[in-house]
């Protein structure tokens, strides 16, 4: 009887090549969100830039009083709040896709995403806090 060096069993037989689908709609919703928020942001951001940079003397008239005057109106507060949240999440989700596409190792991907999520939370929460607690009479 002859013997061979080759193992008689296959290492990890029928091991799946990739993990089973998670049955989650997260990627679908994030894709739809990018399209919808993009359209809304187009109006919000262009409108914001038009007001802040071009109309009525543009950027030269911006000072504390101008911002205080604008935020006295709930309309502009809501405008800025929507813009802040949509831009933060839209840009953050875009960067998430870029990190998913380009990071090679799982560890790099994980830490880059953590850094990204922290900066999104920080920006959005800080912005929201300022918008709601803004005091025009601050000394």
């Amino acid at each position, binding site marked *: 009887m002859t013997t061979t060096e080759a193992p008689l069993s296959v290492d990890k037989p029928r091991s799946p090549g*990739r993990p089973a689908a998670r049955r989650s709609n997260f*990627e*679908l919703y994030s894709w739809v969100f990018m399209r919808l928020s993009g359209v809304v942001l187009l109006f919000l951001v262009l409108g914001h830039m038009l007001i802040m940079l071009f109309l009525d003397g543009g950027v030269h008239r911006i000072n504390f009083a101008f911002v205080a005057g604008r935020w006295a109106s709930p309309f502009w507060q809501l405008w800025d709040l929507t813009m802040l949240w949509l831009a933060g999440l839209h840009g953050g989700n875009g960067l998430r896709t870029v990190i998913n*596409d380009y990071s090679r190792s799982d560890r790099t991907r994980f830490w880059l995403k953590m850094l990204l999520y922290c900066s999104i939370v920080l920006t959005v929460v800080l912005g929201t806090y300022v918008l709601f607690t803004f005091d025009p009479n601050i000394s």
Partner: protein
Amino acid sequence: MTAPTTDANSDTATVDLPSDAPPIPEGATMVTVKIERYNPEVDDDLHWESYRIPALPSDRVLNLLHYIKWYVDGTLTFRRSCAHGVCGSDAMRINGVNRLACKVLMKDMFAKKGETTITVEPIKGLPVEKDLLVNMEPFFEAYKAIKPYLVTTGNDPTRERIQSVAERERFDDTTKCILCAACTTSCPVYWSEGSYFGPAAIVNAHRFIFDSRDEAAEERLDILNDIDGVWRCRTTFNCTDACPRGIQVTKAIQEVKRALMFRRR
């Protein structure tokens, strides 16, 4: 065969014609074929090598590769089988775009002025085994993962499974795929992230998702709904441009996205 001579203008070696090469046919033009080569037993990395060989306007790029392999350097390695654009073996990057070497005619490749240079590289995103031959296993792994076969429940019908002309037309475009990997390896997302299913796998999923006789559409949609599925597509249309069968690949991917968005469950 003569020894490779180094070209003064570049760092790549140009190989001359051997003395026992067949006579140059009438109407042939000398062209330079620059091939990205790699021999895992000798080379540390991929490198370019140039060959000056005669080409007829009726030649295909595959004929030029054959000429090099048969008369200049027998170690040149590449896949080809039918040589008529049906088997899908000889997908490669020709002048920077993915094409089947057997479907690119030389008369479309000649430079308007000066001498013609054609660059040939292995398709990107898959591990190079030797010269133009890549390991296709990751490509077929993604293909197998989307269940590219008819799935039905219940007893098999005693006669054929009936399908109307309109129902057949629905997925006609994606039945043309020959699995050459030209689309998948032209996709920038696939280059940087190999776990993405890639256009070819999605095309073959589309072929069954929209087949009225198949019953596993939901299962395939679930697979393509995950992080490595259709939502990775950036609609750069490289795949549609690369497909040698003229399949509207990006359109097929978008149709799967639409099916996911409007499905009920």
